[in-house]
C-alpha cells in the first residue's frame, strides 16, 4: 500500500502532496529531493529509503512522481506501474504533462488522486469509471503557435496541410470534448522503437523492434471499434500466412479489453475504447527484420574522422548523429553537404553532434569532420565511435504493420474524425566504426 504520493518539479518545487495514511510527515518531500539530487550515477535511484519509509519514484514529463510506502514487501511492479498510469491519467485530463500544466490543474489532480487511491489502496485507474466522478474542468495552456495558422489556407481554402492532423492535436484534455461538441476524434498510432547495433563491417549484429498500437479516444460516448491489421500478419516463427510479403512479429500482447474472436480468421481487433489513451497491442520483433535497417554508415577515419550516410527510407526527420571523439579534442572544422545541417563539438560529452533536420530518402549525405586533438596517440582512435543515430521516421513502420481499416460501429451520428499515424523512433541505433 502507498503511504503518500507527491509530485515534484525538477527544481524541487512541491507541486502536489497527498498523505493517505498519516504514517509520515510532509517533511519527507524535502528529504526525498535531497536524496535524489545527491545521487551519483552508480546508485539505482528508483527505490530509496529513509528510515522505515521507502521512496519509489518515476520520472515523467520532467517531473518526479513519488510514492512512499512503509512496507518493504510492496510490489515494485505495482507501484511503478501505478505511478506511470497516474501520470498518464494526469496527461489525459490536463492535455499535456509539464510543470506548468500540473500547477494550473492542481485541483483536478487532487480530485483524481482522491478517487484513484483511498487509504493507500489503488481503487481504480480506468478513465471510464473516473469520468463520472471528476468534476473539475481542465485548464489548458495553449501556447500561440504558428503551426495552427498554417493550417488555415488562403481564404479558407482547403489546403493539403489542413487534411493532416497537427502533431499537437492529440495533446488536449479529454474532457474538453464534452463542450466542444463536434470534435469527437479518435487517434490510432502505430509507434515502433528500433534498437539496432550494426557492426563495423556493416553486419547487423542486433535489431529489435518494439511496437505499440495506441488508441487515443476523445469520443464522449464510446461505441465498438474494429481495427483491421494486415491480413498477412503472423505471430511467431512457424506460422506464416498468405503469399504476399508477410508481416511477422515474434510476440504479441493485447490489452485485456480487446476481443480477439475475429483476430485469428481476419486479423481484426474489436474493442470498446475508453476515453483517453490506451495501448491496444504491443508486439516485438527481434533480429529478423523484413527490410534492411534504414541507415548505413560508411566511415573513413584517417587520423581525422568523416563519414557518409546512405539511407534507404523515403524520408526521415530530426536526425541527429552523435559521434564520440577522443579525449583532448580541442576544435572541429567541418564540411557539410547542405546549409540546414549543423554540427558542433560538445566537449562535455566528448562528441560531435551532427544535426540533419530533413533527410530525403534514397539520398546519401556526407560530412567531413576534422578534429584537432591534443596529445593524439594511436589508441585514441579507439575512442572514436560508435556512432549513435537518433531519428524519427514518420509514416513508416519497420515491421511493415499497417492498419487496413478503423471502423466504428454503430456508425456515429456526429461526424467523427479518425486519424491513423505511423512513426518509427530510434530507441538506440548504434553504428560501430
Amino acid at each position, binding site marked *: 500500500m502507498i503511504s503518500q504520493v507527491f509530485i515534484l518539479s525538477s527544481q524541487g518545487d512541491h507541486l502536489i502532496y497527498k498523505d493517505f495514511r498519516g504514517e509520515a510527515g510532509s517533511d519527507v518531500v524535502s528529504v526525498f529531493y535531497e536524496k535524489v539530487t545527491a545521487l551519483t550515477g552508480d546508485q539505482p535511484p528508483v527505490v530509496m529509503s529513509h528510515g522505515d519509509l521507502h521512496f519509489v519514484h518515476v520520472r515523467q514529463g520532467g517531473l518526479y512522481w513519488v510514492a512512499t510506502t512503509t512496507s*518493504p514487501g510492496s510490489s515494485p511492479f505495482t507501484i511503478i*506501474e501505478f505511478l506511470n498510469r497516474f501520470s498518464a491519467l494526469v496527461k489525459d485530463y490536463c492535455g499535456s504533462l509539464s510543470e506548468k500544466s500540473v500547477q494550473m490543474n492542481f485541483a483536478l489532480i487532487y480530485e483524481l488522486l482522491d478517487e484513484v487511491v483511498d487509504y493507500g489502496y489503488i481503487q481504480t485507474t480506468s478513465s471510464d469509471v473516473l469520468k463520472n466522478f471528476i468534476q473539475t474542468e481542465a485548464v489548458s495552456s495553449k501556447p500561440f503557435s504558428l503551426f495552427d495558422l498554417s493550417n488555415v489556407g488562403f481564404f479558407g481554402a482547403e489546403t493539403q496541410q489542413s487534411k493532416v492532423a497537427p502533431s499537437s492535436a492529440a495533446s488536449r484534455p479529454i474532457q474538453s470534448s464534452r463542450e466542444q461538441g463536434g470534435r469527437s476524434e479518435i487517434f490510432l498510432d502505430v509507434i515502433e522503437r528500433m534498437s539496432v547495433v550494426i557492426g563495423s563491417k556493416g553486419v547487423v549484429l542486433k535489431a529489435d523492434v518494439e511496437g505499440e498500437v495506441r488508441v487515443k479516444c476523445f469520443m464522449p460516448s464510446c461505441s465498438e471499434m474494429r481495427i483491421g491489421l494486415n491480413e498477412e500478419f503472423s505471430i511467431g516463427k512457424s506460422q506464416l500466412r498468405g503469399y504476399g510479403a508477410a508481416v511477422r512479429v515474434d510476440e504479441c500482447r493485447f490489452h485485456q479489453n480487446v476481443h480477439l474472436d475475429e483476430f485469428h480468421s481476419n486479423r481484426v481487433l474489436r474493442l470498446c475504447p475508453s476515453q483517453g489513451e490506451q495501448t491496444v497491442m504491443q508486439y516485438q520483433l527481434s533480429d529478423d527484420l523484413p527490410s534492411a535497417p534504414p541507415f548505413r554508415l560508411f566511415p573513413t577515419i584517417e587520423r581525422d574522422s568523416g563519414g557518409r550516410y546512405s539511407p534507404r527510407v523515403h524520408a526521415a526527420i530530426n536526425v541527429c548523429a552523435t559521434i564520440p571523439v577522443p579525449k583532448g579534442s580541442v576544435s572541429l572544422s567541418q564540411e557539410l553537404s547542405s546549409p540546414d545541417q549543423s554540427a558542433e563539438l560538445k566537449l562535455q560529452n566528448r*562528441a560531435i553532434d551532427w544535426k540533419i533536420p530533413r533527410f530525403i530518402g534514397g539520398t546519401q549525405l556526407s560530412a567531413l569532420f576534422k578534429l584537432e586533438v591534443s596529445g593524439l596517440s594511436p589508441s585514441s582512435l579507439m575512442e572514436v565511435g560508435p556512432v549513435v543515430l537518433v531519428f524519427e521516421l514518420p509514416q513508416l513502420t519497420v515491421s511493415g504493420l499497417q492498419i487496413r481499416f478503423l471502423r466504428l460501429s454503430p456508425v456515429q451520428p456526429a461526424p467523427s474524425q479518425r486519424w491513423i499515424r505511423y512513426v518509427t523512433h530510434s530507441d538506440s541505433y548504434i553504428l560501430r566504426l
Partner: protein
Amino acid sequence: MPYLGSEDAVRELRRALSNPNVQSDQLRYRNTVLKAIRAMSQGVDVSDLFSEMVKACATVDIVQKKLVYVFLCSYATLNPELSLLVINTLRKDCQDPNPMVRSLALRNMTNLRLPSLVEYVEQPLAAGLRDRAACVRRVAVLGWAKLHNLQPDAEIDAAVVNELYGLLRDPDPVVMVNCLRALEEILKKEGGVAINKPITHHLLNRLKESDVWGQCEVLRILQRYHPQSEDELFDILSLLDASLVSPHPPVMAATLGLFLGLCSGLPAVSLAALERVRGPLLAACGSTSRETRFTALCHIQLLLRSLPGLMGAHYKRFFCGYAEPAYIKQRKMQVLVELVNDENVAMLLDELKGYCTDVNPETAQAAISAIGRIGRSYSDRCLEILTGLLGLKQEHITSAVVQTMCDLVWVCPQCSDTVCSALEGCEEMLQDSQGRQALLWLLAAYGERVSSAPYTLEGFIDRVRSEASLGVKMELLTTTMRLFLCRPSETQDMLGRLLHYCIEEEMDMCVRDQALLYYRLLHCGIEETHKVLHGQRSDPSLGVLIGRPAEPINQWAYSFNTLEPLRQAGFHQVGWGASVHSHFQISPEMFNRVQVRALAGPLKDIHRVVPKPLLCYLGCVLRFVQSALEHVFIQDVSVHCCIHLSLNPD
C-alpha cells in the same frame, strides 16, 4: 517551500474568504478556496484559515466541497475542536440523494484522523456498508480499516467483521478487494483475513472481474493459502496460468510470486513457471518506462540465480541502449556477465568493449569490471582487451583496469604473467586511491616478476608525506615488507625510510600501529616475518563463472516482487553458498592482504574482491589475532570489523 510574505498572503485569503460579497458569488468563492489550496500545496502554512474553510464547506458546489475537504483533512489534527463543526455537514451529506456526495462525505469523514470523532462516524459508516451505490460501499469498507487504525487497542467489533466477510460476495469487484484489504488490517493481530478453501475458490473465480490492481491484491493475499491436496494445487495453478503471461507486469509478478509460494515443495513446477514468465519479463525489459525496465532487470537477476540458462539465447536483449541511464546500463552488464557462454562470448566482449570508453566514468568502470568477471572463464580474450585499454592512458580507465586485474589474478593465477607485464608504466596514470591500492597489492604479490617494482615503490615512498589515503599507506607498508622479503637488497633502504616515517611522523594511529607491528615482527626474525606475510596469492576455488551450481528457488523466493532486489548494489553473489563452508575451515595462515584490504575498504570493494565468504575471513582474522599477536593489531583489526559489520547487515 515557504516564501516571504506568506503571512500577508494568509491574511489576504482570510479577508477574501470571510467577505460576504465573495461568498455570495459561487465562482469567486471557489477561486478563493482554490488559492488557499494552492498555497497549501506549495508548502505555505495556511492552517489559520481553518474556521473560514469550515464555513466554505457548506455549499452545493461539489468542486468547492472537494477542495475544502482536501484542506480540512490536511489540518484537522491541528484543530480537533473546530473539526467537530465539520462533522455535522458531513453527516448531512451522508444522507444526500447523490451517491457521489455520499461517498465523498464518508471518505473525508474517515480521513480526518481524529479519534475524538469516532463515535460520530460509526453510524454513517455502518449505513454505508448497506448503501445501494457501489462507490459508497467501497469507501465505507475501507473506512472501517481507517477507524480501526485510529484506535488500534479498541475491541474489534465482531458484527462489523462478519459484515465485511459477507461483503466478499459483493457484486462490485472493488468492494470485494477492499473487504480483503480492510479485514487484513483489522485482523492484523490474528494474522490477517482468514483464507480458507471456500474463500480462496471464490476469490479465484472472480479474479478476472477485477482490474490489474485488484488482481495483484488478491494474488498477494492468496499466498497464505495452503492447498489441501495436490489436485487442488494443480487446479489453482492451471487457473492462474493465463495470468502468468499477462501483459501487465504487476499481475505477472504477483502471479509468479503466488506460484513460487504454492509450489515451494515442487521445484520442477516452479522452474517451469520461471520459463513461462521469460517472455513477459523480457517484454518488461523493453518497456518504454525506464523504471519498469529496471525493475524487470533486477528480477531477472533473481531468476538467473536458479536458472542460469534462462536468458542465454536472448543475450542481445540486454545490450545497453545509447540513451539509457547509467543505473540500467550497469544492471544490464551484470546480467550479460551471467549469460556468457562459448557461442556468444565474442559478441558479448565486443559489446562490452564498446562501453569501456563511455563518457560516464561509472559505466566505463562497470564495463571493465564486467570484462574482468568474464575473464575468469575466458582469460586470454579478456586480458587482451584489458591491456588494450591501458593504451588509452585515461585515469579512470587505467584505475578500473588495474583493479580488475587485481581481482582476476586472485581467481586465475595463470593470468599473472600477462598482468605483470602490463603493469609497467601504469603508476603515472593512477590518481585514485583504489587504483593505487590495487597496483600496490599486485606489486606485493608478484614483486619478483615486475622488474621495475622497487622503483615504483620508491616513488610512492617519496610521496608518502603528501599521501591522503589511509588505505594506500597501509597497503604501501605491506607491499614494501613483502617486496623486502623477496628482493631485500633493493628495498632495504626504502623500507627503513618508510618505517621511520610511519612510526615517527605519521599522525594516523592505524598506520603507526601497523608500522610498529611490522617493525617488531622484523625483530622476531625473517622466518617469523615470512610466516605472517607470505599468504596465499590466489584462490582458484572461488571458481569460474560458468558451470556454477544453480541455487534453489527458495533462497530468493521470499524477496521476489518486493523492493529488496531493486536495492542491492553491485554484483550480486551467485552460487557462493557452497564455498562459504569450506572457507570457515581455513587455517589462520590464510590471512593475507586481500582480506584485510577487503575489510578496510568500502562495501563496493568487499563485494568486488572477495564476493561472499567475508564473514568467515573475519572469523579467520579474529582467530589469527587471538592466537598470535600484540594488542596493537587487535585494535587495528577490530576497527575494520566495525566498519564492515555496519555496512553489511546481513
